């Protein structure tokens, strides 16, 4: 979630920049610039930028942040906005489609399991999963399941 009050503090702090592996190791990755633009209402240009997908969700920033907020909160918000506009990297789209269809990101390899002497894999809950996804998508509850 975006919280302007917390972001204002970020704009004066920047402490997590110096521990963030993406900031330290990837040219051009700098959540400080994204945060500045969010505060001044100019976040739009970031939605199509590859930067927002470069946050590794390693939670380093969250751990050292005295607000328990972290750069990642701003980056996750940008990714969600981008996804709502259909602007996801192709692989994310493929992964999402498979997840929604099956509830998993792949199926156990039956032949390899046999060769290794592994027991048959436990049953997946995909049927019940599909049921609750349907209820969720139909109900208005979806706006209520969120961090307040």
């Amino acid at each position, binding site marked *: 979630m975006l919280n302007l009050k917390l972001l204002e503090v970020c704009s004066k702090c920047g402490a997590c920049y110096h521990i963030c592996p993406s900031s330290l*190791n990837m040219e051009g990755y700098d959540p400080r610039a994204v945060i500045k633009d969010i505060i001044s209402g100019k976040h739009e240009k970031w939605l199509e930028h590859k930067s927002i997908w470069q946050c590794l969700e390693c939670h380093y920033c969250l751990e050292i942040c005295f607000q328990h907020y972290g750069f990642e909160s701003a980056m996750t918000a940008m990714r*969600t906005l981008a996804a709502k506009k259909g602007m996801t990297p192709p*692989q994310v789209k493929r992964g999402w489609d498979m997840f929604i269809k099956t509830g*998993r990101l792949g199926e156990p390899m039956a032949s390899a399991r046999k060769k290794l002497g592994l027991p048959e894999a436990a*049953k997946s809950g995909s049927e019940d999963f599909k049921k609750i996804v349907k209820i969720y998508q139909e109900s208005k509850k979806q706006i209520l*399941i969120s961090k307040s």
Partner: protein
Amino acid sequence: MKDFAIFWGCTIQTRFPFLEKSTRMVLDGFNLPYRDLDGFTCCPEKSLVNNVDHGLWVLTAARNIALLDKAGVDLVSPCTGCVSNLATVNSELHLSYKEKNNVNSILNEVGLEFKGKNKLRHLVPFFHDEVGIPSIKNKIVKPFNGMRIAIHYGCHMIRPSHSLKNDDPLEPKKFDNLIRAMGAESVQHMTKLMCCGQGLDRVDQHENALHFARLKLKELKTLKADAMALCCPSCYLQFDNNQFLMEKEGEKFGIPILYFTELLGLAMGYKPEDLGLDSHRTPATNFLEKWDRLNEELSQTTELNRQLEQGFGIAQHT
């Protein structure tokens, strides 16, 4: 010990069934009360599902946790991502009565209720806290004395700490303690806690993913580490597979990537091929040879020490 369900997650069962094999072998070796539970789905993967729909991320994880509530068992997983995702949702729901009620009104439709009453743990802290160092030492028949192993914790084994609460999130110790209990030196290195970077491969940024893998592998090569130890299928994919791809293009690292369960299994006396080590793309041959050699030397001194002890006629440290 309370019974626990093993949560394998998608990546291990889809891509690395041999990691399931070594995990089962060590769990059986310690006679631990684990079981397979029907009905799990993807944990679900945070970077994928949460980015697109937070509510569905919460609901799916809550359903997996509700299955534990129904069966009355704890959960242990050999995947850091799975545990971290489940634990994060678990704590979020414990903090919001309203959110929990909304989730449960949907779960009720499939006969489930989220209570979040059971422990959710990663395999490494589980072995450390629940099995314990003394019992582990008792099972070791072929220790790694003299071997230099560099640990890669993997971010989600320990973070976010407000949900996982299992080790120091910025200076963890438990994996180190376990590696040392097996006799090895835990090689300290600058990139020890750095994210593996595998996530970049999932957003079509392969070159950046390789860049992250290279940073760590280069350091370990300089430090002459014998192997990297980890316990996460994503990190494993990043360092085993991407190392293989880079070596194919001419870069040389030669760092075998060993799963916690493979190391423990080896030290317990299981054969490398039974543990699935021949399925790795980066071979562990050099590691295994050096280890054999050191163990031969070790058994010679052990024999001498035994004779010395007999000479003194009192119990001595070995």
